[in-house]
């Protein structure tokens, strides 16, 4: 039996006290000193475990409290209350919400998928990725082995151009050379960060993370240092300078290179591939309303892989931007129409914030995704964006320990991988490659609303 892809996880403790949704407010004044104080009876022993973190002057209590309200409801003088934590509400923004951020923190710390009781508690639907649901299958499963059969689900993805058919000469020998393909065991690349505090620690954590995940980190040519050489098998170098400035030994060791889009990018690609025929080149371009047309053109001209990047909110570059999943559906379907979809690898990035976004974006037509901000959040980033203004990072990411950071990234990606398996398993799909473009195995808010709710209330 071939070795299965497994991401090793290990608890990686937070360096800073968590910012929790609510806080305990307890008054001493008026306390009756009951012999059986409700604080002593805490089921989670919150009050016994409490301590003050001297660096932040924060109580540890709130990160252990599970909101059961027993003490609030039990204190005879009602001296214990709970209140919303304003610092929690202030986390992130409308897209990188406190719920998203704290969910990512949990996964990066524990390496486990978030599980909770009591059903779903969120909004019915929402913007962006919250307008679709994925399918499940009542009886058909990929395999009847194993507890869930999930041990046999593959998340492997290829990056590169595909031949649609093999050709042979008169002697029966293969007359075409299959183009190089890079295979990665999970459909995720670690991308360059849209903003970040300075320091090598963050970059090394991402590189080490990419290495242990057996995927690639996209690194700017201008950021590349000799210290990164040991990570070359896991680097996709983004060319933001001259190709001629790259050391030949580096160039020949690279398996992936990312080229910025230009009208002549195919020429640049072909030049590069002459030097290193084993190289797979990715063309990186902003996602915009013309993407579909451009992607079809590039594919016909011989592009191998295209990385379409939306902004950090998943929006394309436009005055009236479409969300990444909508534009990707358009691109995917245009490629299908042109009969070239299977020749090209589509990579999408920007606004990928949760595990469910990975599955949904692949259903909408991407082969794989790039992930950026969640890598920082894995290292306790609070998405305050102060680093953009040159202000010191509140969680001291400038000096982060790369080993710890890599462990957190690995944990987060392991949790995402596991969640992707849950989605694939529920659908009865055995390979993530088969999930791509499976829009018939998803349910879209707009369609369901139109079919069902828009027809209600009409007489006769």
């Amino acid at each position, binding site marked *: 039996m071939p070795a299965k892809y497994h991401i090793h996880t290990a608890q990686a403790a937070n360096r800073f006290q968590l910012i929790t949704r609510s806080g305990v407010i307890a008054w001493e004044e008026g306390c009756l000193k009951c012999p059986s104080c409700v604080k002593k009876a805490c089921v989670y022993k919150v009050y016994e475990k409490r301590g003050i973190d001297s660096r932040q002057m924060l109580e540890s209590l709130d990160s252990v409290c*599970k909101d059961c309200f027993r003490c609030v*409801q039990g204190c005879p003088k009602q001296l214990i209350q709970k209140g919303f934590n304003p610092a929690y509400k202030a986390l992130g923004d409308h897209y990188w919400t406190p719920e998203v951020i704290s969910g990512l923190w949990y996964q990066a710390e524990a390496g486990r998928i978030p599980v909770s*009781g009591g059903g779903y508690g969120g909004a019915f639907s929402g913007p962006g990725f919250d307008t679709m649901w994925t399918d499940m299958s009542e009886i058909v499963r990929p395999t009847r082995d194993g507890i869930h059969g999930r041990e046999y689900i593959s998340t492997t993805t290829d990056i590169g151009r595909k031949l649609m058919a093999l050709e042979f000469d008169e002697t029966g020998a293969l007359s075409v050379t299959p183009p190089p393909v890079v295979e990665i065991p999970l459909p995720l690349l670690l991308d360059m960060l849209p903003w970040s505090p300075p320091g090598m620690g963050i970059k090394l954590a991402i590189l080490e993370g990419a290495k242990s995940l057996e995927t690639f980190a996209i690194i700017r040519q201008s950021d590349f240092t000799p210290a990164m050489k040991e990570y070359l098998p896991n680097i996709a170098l983004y060319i933001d300078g001259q190709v001629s400035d790259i050391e030949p030994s580096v160039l020949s060791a690279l398996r992936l290179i990312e080229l910025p889009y230009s009208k002549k990018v195919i020429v640049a690609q072909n030049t590069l591939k002459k030097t290193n025929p084993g190289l797979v080149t990715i063309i990186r371009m902003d996602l915009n309303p013309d993407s579909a047309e451009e992607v079809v053109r590039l594919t016909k001209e011989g592009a191998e892989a295209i990385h379409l990047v939306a902004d950090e909110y998943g929006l394309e570059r436009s005055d009236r931007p479409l969300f990444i999943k909508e534009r990707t559906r358009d691109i995917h379907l245009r490629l299908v129409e042109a009969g070239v979809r299977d020749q090209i690898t589509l990579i999408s990035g920007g606004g990928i914030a949760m595990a469910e976004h990975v599955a949904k974006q692949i259903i909408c037509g991407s082969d794989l995704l790039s992930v950026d901000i969640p890598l920082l959040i894995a290292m306790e980033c609070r998405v305050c964006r102060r680093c953009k203004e040159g202000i010191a990072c509140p969680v001291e990411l400038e000096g982060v320990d790369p080993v710890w950071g890599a462990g957190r990234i690995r944990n987060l990606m392991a949790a995402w991988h596991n969640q992707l398996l849950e989605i694939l398993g529920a659908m009865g799909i055995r390979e993530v490659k088969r999930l791509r473009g499976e829009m018939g195995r998803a349910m879209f808010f707009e369609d369901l609303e139109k079919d069902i709710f828009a027809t209600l209330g009409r007489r006769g």
Partner: protein
Amino acid sequence: MLPEVKKIPSRFRNALSKYRVTITKECNNCGICIKLCPYGVYKAGSKKPRVAAEHLCLGFPCSANEFYCVNKCPEKAIQLRLNPAFEILGDRRWSPDLLASTWHMAETGEIPYQGLNYKTGDSGGGFDKLRFIFPREKGPEIPDEEVSTAIELNRSGDSRPGVRIPVPFYLGGMSFGSVSIVTMLSRVKAAAALNTFCCTGEGGYPEELIPYDDHMITQVATGLFGVSEESLKRVRIVEFKYAQGAKPGLGGHLLGDKVTPRVARMREAVAGSALFSPFPFHSVYSVEDHKKHVDWIKQTNSRALVSVKVSTPTDVDMVAVGSYYAGAHIIQLDGSYGGTGAAPDIAKKNIAMPIEYAVPKVHKFLSEEGIRDKITIIASGGIRSAYDMAKAIALGANGVCLGTADLVALECIRCHHCESGRGCARGIATTDEQLTNLMELEWATQRIINMYLTWRRQLVSILKRLGMKSVTELVGRFDVIGHLDYIKQEEIEGELEL
């Protein structure tokens, strides 16, 4: 005969409330507030009155009343403000208002008067944006007792006995092991008192339930835990659980901590080791296999009705048709937003469709196939109130199946930590002995009864306003509900209830 309402206050010292009432030092204990308040917020005290029941306080809207204590207090010693802890409770589906409303119904058997929204949650879609359209002209007054809320569960026309329940709902499965024996028994006893049913869930059939055989549905799920020929023969309805809305397409998982010696014995397993209920049935890979299952039950118990519980995939309508042709009497559609047990968050939110879409989709399809009258559709997964229930029926269900609402009646606050450590800290979803003792059976049973009696009254009032004498007239009446995003008051003949 329906049971009676009995007042059953919170089992905790301080009930959770929307408002906070405090009496300051200025109080001279004149007792005016005690006499004024018709809701019993205050009790006499030695130095000053005691605020005994803030949750019964009307809050700020009371200021219009003659008996508004804050204004009438001669010493201006009463402070009324919003309770800051209130907004932390619950979530968007179960808003703090909806939780407090449910607690109020469970305590008093009455519709809340405190200005709480007891009709919708805060999820921004689905049930929360659906509204009834009531006729403007009032028809002839229908006396309450002439309105029927009963439904027949066996519509197949086969030779098996009819099973008529006086309310259009029964209670869904929560297995022994996932909830305490007190929770389980209270739900069963409440179901028996209401003359409806309660499902065992997948944990077997504890002997405490034997007196209630006529009100039990026993579940056959993929792990076959606790399934025996003997227990299948006891009941009037057997339920096949193919999938569940909380984790569609995923197996069940009972953590080792919850597998106590008793749980283990009943499930024929080893105490302390986690139990997996696989997905799917490993003996069912086609509709033909499914029919074989249904036939097996029918052969084992010649009087039982067969219910099939499924989740809501894209082709849920085809699944329903398949179930019908395999011989099921009831198809239970379990929408993706419900469920009580622990489940991965990604599954709860994203996999399968909400019940609000699934029910009309199946209802329409079965109607077109000409078989809608032969099968009972039960909707579950995210039905939180009498209004949700009535809306689900108008969308095409015959009745509904409930679970979370019961737990809320037992003072679940939806902290979502059912699975942490010793289990539910409030003693509902736990097998921890000490925590289980937080709740008494009589208390719990009556709370659930009170809530459902209030639901029934609300349903009767909705039916009356629609000019209907039976809940069976409401099934699939797409014309009496509208969605706020697609319909405007000026476009319709009736009155859109906002």
